[in-house]
């Protein structure tokens, strides 16, 4: 592992990364997962411990962390945008 990472991607299937320090809008952030390096330009301020999107997501798309769906988007989310309670809810259970 080379330079210090500012964000962590826990599982290679994840479509979000978690900030390891407070990050500002416009910052270029790189993080490594299983040897793959992701470079993202942030579209929002991301507090430490909060998530940002690694890819563009449609409304209703599964948000993946730990390789599993932690919820689904309630609106379109752009790569680099803050992903949290304002744009994600738990997935409905049963019947899906």
């Amino acid at each position, binding site marked *: *592992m080379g330079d*210090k*990472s*500012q*964000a*962590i991607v*826990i*599982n290679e299937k994840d479509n979000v990364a*978690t*900030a*390891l*320090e407070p990050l500002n809008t416009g910052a270029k952030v790189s*993080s*490594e997962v*299983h040897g793959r390096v992701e470079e993202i330009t942030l579209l929002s301020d991301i*507090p*430490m*411990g*909060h*998530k940002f999107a690694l890819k563009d997501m449609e409304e209703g798309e599964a*948000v993946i*962390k*730990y*390789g*599993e*769906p*932690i*919820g689904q988007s309630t609106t379109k989310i752009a790569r680099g945008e803050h*992903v*949290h*309670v304002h744009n*994600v*809810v*738990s*997935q409905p*259970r049963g019947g899906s």
Partner: protein
Amino acid sequence: MTFQGYLRPDGKAGTRNYVLVIPSVGCSQIAGQSIAQGLKDVVCLPNILGCGQVGEDRELVKKTLVGFGTHPNVSAVLIVGNGCEQLAPEKIAQGIAPTGKRVEVIVIQDIGGTTKTIALGKKIVKEMHEDAARLNREPIPLSELILGTECGGSDYTSGLASNPAVGAACDMLVSEGGTAILSETPELIGAEHLLARRARTPEMAQQVLDAVAWWENKAIAAGQNIREANPAPGNIAGGITTLEEKSLGCIYKGGTSPLEEFIPYASHPTKKGLVYMDTPAHDIEQLTGMVAGGAQIIVFTTGRGNPLGTPIAPVIKITANRDTYLKMRDNMDIDVSKIIEGKETVQSAGERILEEIISVASGKATKAEKLGQRDFCLFKMNINI
């Protein structure tokens, strides 16, 4: 890959070589403690139950004590009874006998008082200890290892770093043919359907869902709705978005392997790979259940710090909180805070954890062992009568 362990007559392998004193009832507990006192590698379980119990608790206490007696970290067992207790000491001995190890029973009412019982007990455990000291460690494949996992005193570093690092170590152990136990059913709430999807059979998936429903209803009956109360406002401020995310941060310490078996509290896995044991989230009851089920070693992640150990299985403490590591150096074994600093990958930390598991399984003392943390708590479902 191998560790240096003690091969037992039943083919199982120990990471430690204890003589165990089991009081069958609270009435003989102090006599048992007196027998073990001052003798190196002789441990007495602080059992205060074994009588006045009802329903499934009668079976649970026996199963747990027998599980400690049959455990491969134990070379021989002395059971100390009072005489009129509900849980007959002979019943515990019968449960241990099939392992082929030496098991003796002494009873205070038969011998005639505590003083004589302690004297006789000391004579027996000294013999047992002399026999145990003649055994040597030998190379044992990692496939014989059952690793228990636990998280306690969690903070934001647990779900982000220490649990994923332990998960990576579990995946490596499973790929070596070993076994990892995941447990703490109340902490599955919200992500139980995701764990259930990893079960090998639909029946096993249903067992996971049923176990969560049982605990959730118990908690609701006691006035606590865990699902509605989480994620708590503090969790959300810290970046946790949904209950699934919070619970996955806990579950991820078991790694990403398919679920091979679902076992009740204190039961022995019959499959290798990732196994789920239905336990409380209460740290000591959970540790006690996993050890009774045969776990020879435990990895325990913590954010805020935790001192716990078990009577016979070493517990490795892992934290990704640098402040906690520095403040509690006498309790913490491994620092994985470089993940949080962005200077180490989860995979690399997982490799370090597996190396430490092998060292500790081969005899290296953990911090909890050095501190004499022989914590033990029997899980019970009902009141005592």
